[in-house]
């Protein structure tokens, strides 16, 4: 299975342009608000600040949503390992999975005692994120 998603365009450049225009207007509104506060026009300043912050938050959210959609369309390949074990001397060898490997398959001779080894396990290791324990 391929790991990369097809190069689909999930957000148009027009949509992105609108978001950036809104961000620019929000910054202007915030600047106006600050100026009004400094000049003592408290009410006018509050309006500008509310409008500026609101539209800035909204456009940041929209931008985040469009950027987030891409990584979700990818299927991460898992690293799978094969453990080869010598039943006689206990020698253990860990390597990457190779096509044709299966559990309990006879493998190459043991480098220590020359006895035939076997594939003892095939697994993937998952690193769990720190979770709240209940």
């Amino acid at each position, binding site marked *: *299975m*391929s790991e990369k*998603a*097809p190069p689909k365009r999930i957000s148009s450049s027009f949509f992105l342009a609108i978001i950036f225009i809104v961000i620019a207007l929000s910054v202007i509104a915030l600047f106006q608000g600050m100026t009004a506060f400094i000049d003592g026009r*408290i*009410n*006018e300043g*509050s*309006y*500008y600040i*509310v409008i500026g912050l609101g539209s800035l938050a909204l456009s940041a959210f929209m931008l985040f949503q469009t950027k987030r*959609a891409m990584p*979700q*369309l990818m*299927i991460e*390949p*898992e690293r*799978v390992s094969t453990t080869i074990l010598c039943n006689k001397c206990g020698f253990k060898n860990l390597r990457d*999975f190779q*096509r*044709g*490997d*299966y*559990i*309990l*398959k006879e493998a190459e001779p043991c480098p220590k005692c020359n006895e035939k080894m076997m594939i003892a*396990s*095939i*697994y*993937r*290791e*998952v690193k769990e994120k720190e979770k709240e324990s*209940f």
Partner: protein
Amino acid sequence: MFPAVPQGLFGNPQDLLGWIMQIAWLLMFMVMIFWGQRIQMLTMLREVGGSLKRLEFMKDEGRKTAISTIKEIGKPKEDPTARVDQFLEYVAFPPVDLDPSGIVWKLEHVLDVRDIRFKDDVKRMAPEASESQINNLENMLEAALLLNIIHKVVRHFYLLGKKTMSLYIIMQVQMVLPLLMQEAKAIASSLRAFTYEQPIGDGAGALVAAKLMYGHEKSKIAKDIVMAKVPLEGRTAYVLKAEGPGGNVGKPGDAIKRIIEENDGKIATIITVDAAQKLEGEKPGEIAEGIGVAIGGPGVDAYKVDETLLKHKIPMDALIIKESLGDSYAQMRKEIVDAADVAIERIKRLILERTKVGDSVIIAGIGNTVGIGQ
């Protein structure tokens, strides 16, 4: 310049900006009152639409993987794309349950015919594939088929919701969407496992049985099931599992029934080991012990075992190895591999506690045996 209006939410609206804010505020209320539900519906539709896009991607990847693997392994003379597309639309109707008497046998017949048909189709698509590879290809195509069905069902509700703008139609799919997505992701991860013949989490029971029967003589006892007579703690253990390393679950119900009948019902206990879905918060690879027949699937095999055990009054023990839905479809986790050794110790303890020296027991490792030999 502007008439005086009452004190607003944002202070005294004596200027132009105050007016704009007042009107915007009122407009927002009006919009929420008249179009609130519609906005909610559009938000839900957007969410479903996003998930549908991901499902479409998974479905397409499944189809592409199936076609490329068939070409690589089966070396067909013709392009298998049309046949794969036909396979992905396959339907199987369950038997009529108006009169439930005897429905298990009817269901078994439907499943058998389906299995034979699937294998025949895969053989035609991949003439050069070995028996084990045919089993893997069949499993892979079934995974692609499931992804196709999930995509189609979600798309149906999405388009129907869009067409009718009915909140209840959209809500139905939106509410179950997280679970459907979880299942689809799990199925998509199994595609890689079947392509490379890697063991999957569902094979935890088969791994336990494989470890127990390793080094002992094996014989085929039922369809796709192998059995070995293993001396264990002074008892005779009939250990059975599906024949690997190809993707197979076999018919453990038939095998258990045959062993019991061949021993005239003189079996001290039967222990079934299977992977089972863990609840959120539980650790993967945890083992739970209990009574009953731990055989998943459509229930045909569990029914057969239940019937035979009841007839001969044989006690039954069960061991389950816990894992998430995603882990059961994906390549086997290290925790589950480690749990197999713990399960063997638990089986030995169970045998020592519940049976006497010289008794016969059956140990059945249930699950898909892809990537697990014997």
